[in-house]
């Protein structure tokens, strides 16, 4: 059903979305705090089709959580439009809730003093999940996420990783079409992160669940998302495949040249020396240009002992992108 619809209409449709917050700020020299307004999200436009896995990244305070809160109906936009599954999230919030799952990594949805199982049972009632389907889903997620031993433990006694798996199960029991994850891997160790990524990938493969994921861990994005939206100062600065970020960021590759003897900085067209350390020199050239002419030019004029090329790290690319509009 959702597949046929997706061909006509995106599952998530965000147009010129805007959200401001009124804040009171203390200003030196004035007794009373002055009113001010923060533009948390503005002029934000994107669509997500059913079944996509989209990484939503940006520096602290970029507006990621604010966007997710508008997509879930928690916050009412101050401008623009947002539709999810054909609904207006803030107006049809309760109806939309049945069709989406939300995980806020820093905050649990589970009831602190109750055993996991009780939280899940209550969710079954709230979402009115048919008993058979509930049992199937619970068994499956508990098995996949390895939560069997913790079902009767009060949530406050769970480790962070266990609690996070509990939260993800809680968000999925009702088979949502979209799952929003706001920093789901925050604080998890490497093994837990890996397991969680595997689980999310399988979820998308098998059930076609659409994922929108914010994170500061780019490995999450590399492992899961074919598409990234980079947001900075409340608006999107890049939307496309992860690989395309290189070109967008104006990033460069590095040619590391080991000369036979120390020499003054190499001069060849299309590349610039960044660093010299004895006989070793680092030359940068645009990431979207071919390395071959640079290598040929260096080899033609210098005595080269060894050569290697370093690809730009995605972290650097994004850092570059952020700092450019700062």
């Amino acid at each position: 059903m959702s597949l046929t619809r997706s061909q006509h209409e995106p599952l998530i449709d965000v147009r010129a979305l805007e959200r401001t917050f009124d804040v009171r700020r203390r200003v030196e020299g004035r007794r009373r705090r002055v009113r001010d307004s923060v533009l948390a999200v503005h002029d934000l436009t994107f669509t997500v089709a059913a079944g996509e896995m989209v990484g939503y990244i940006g520096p602290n305070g970029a507006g990621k959580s604010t966007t997710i809160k508008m997509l879930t109906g928690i916050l009412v936009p101050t401008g623009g439009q947002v539709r999810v599954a054909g609904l207006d999230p803030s107006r049809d919030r309760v109806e939309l809730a049945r069709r989406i799952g939300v995980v806020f990594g820093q905050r649990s949805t589970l009831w602190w003093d109750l055993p996991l199982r009780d939280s899940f049972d209550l969710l079954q009632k709230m979402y009115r999940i048919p008993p058979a389907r509930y049992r199937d889903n619970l068994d499956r997620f508990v098995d996949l996420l390895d939560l069997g031993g913790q079902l009767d433990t009060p949530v406050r006694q769970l480790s962070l990783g266990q609690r996070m798996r509990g939260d993800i199960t809680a968000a999925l029991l009702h088979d949502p079409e979209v799952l929003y994850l706001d920093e789901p891997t925050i604080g998890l160790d490497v093994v837990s992160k890996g397991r969680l990524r595997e689980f999310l990938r399988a979820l998308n493969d098998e059930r076609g669940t659409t994922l929108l994921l914010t994170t500061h861990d780019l490995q999450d994005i590399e492992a899961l998302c074919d598409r990234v939206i980079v947001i900075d100062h409340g608006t999107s600065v890049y939307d496309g495949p992860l690989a395309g970020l290189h070109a967008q960021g104006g990033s460069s590759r590095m040619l590391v040249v080991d000369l036979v003897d120390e020499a003054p900085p190499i001069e060849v067209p299309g590349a610039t020396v960044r660093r010299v350390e004895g006989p070793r020199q680092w030359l940068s050239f645009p990431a979207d240009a071919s390395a071959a002419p640079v290598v040929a030019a260096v080899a033609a004029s210098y005595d080269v002992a060894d050569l290697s090329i370093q690809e730009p790290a995605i972290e650097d690319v994004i850092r570059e992108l952020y700092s450019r509009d700062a």
Partner: protein
Amino acid sequence: MAESGPALHLRSYLQIAWLWIRAAWQYPTSFVLLAVGNGLITALDFVGLWIMFAHLDDLAGFTLPEVALLYGSASLALAVADTAIGSVERIGAYIRTGRLDQMMTKPVPLLVQVCADQFTLRRLGRLTQAAIVFGWACTYVDWTPSRVVVALWMLVSGGLVFFGLFVGFSCVQFWTTDATEFANAFTYGGATVTQYPLTIFPREVLVGLTFVIPVAFVNWYPCLYLLGRSDPTGMPEAFQFASPVAGVLTMAAALLVWRSGVRHYTSTGS
């Protein structure tokens, strides 16, 4: 779906509340201690009145059983409202901890979730005490069929008035957090005031308690009818039958404020 609207909300409410009762059962001792302690504290309240009467023959022309009727009916309405929806006053804490955000992503109306969350029978003590006082006072009432009807709707309407006050004033916290004390001044303050015959207050106060914070309809006006007294303050006699109107209006106003509060909700920055 056969069920819809209020019936469905009530069922969601009961399911959430039941979960909390079950959870409290896991620590039976502390549950019993809390309930007993709570009952004792409220009992002392009434003992205070009793002592006062030991030195006075009447309070502003009202005998002990008459004051007990005023006190019992207001306490009963407050205890019911407090038990059913008392957690709404914690909304500021829910906002600060992000719990409210979580609730907003669930397919049950927010108000139902907020009211049912951490449901506790701890106030059972207060409820029992209020019921006993009210029951005792009732034995002094000269019952007629119409008085029975007025007494019943007095309790229901009183619950609605307090429901409205709790919800309405808790909404202040959507705009400024940490306003619990401010809200309490009106809800519990209003309840305290109604424990006395309102004739002890200046007329301006009575007008305020009738038209602004309508707690006079919780017990004062209907009790005048139950006791067969003419209104010593000369307010219209119709007020003695107007409790349901006051209850429904207060609640409707509260729901409007609530909706507007939710739309103004700004969540937290992290």
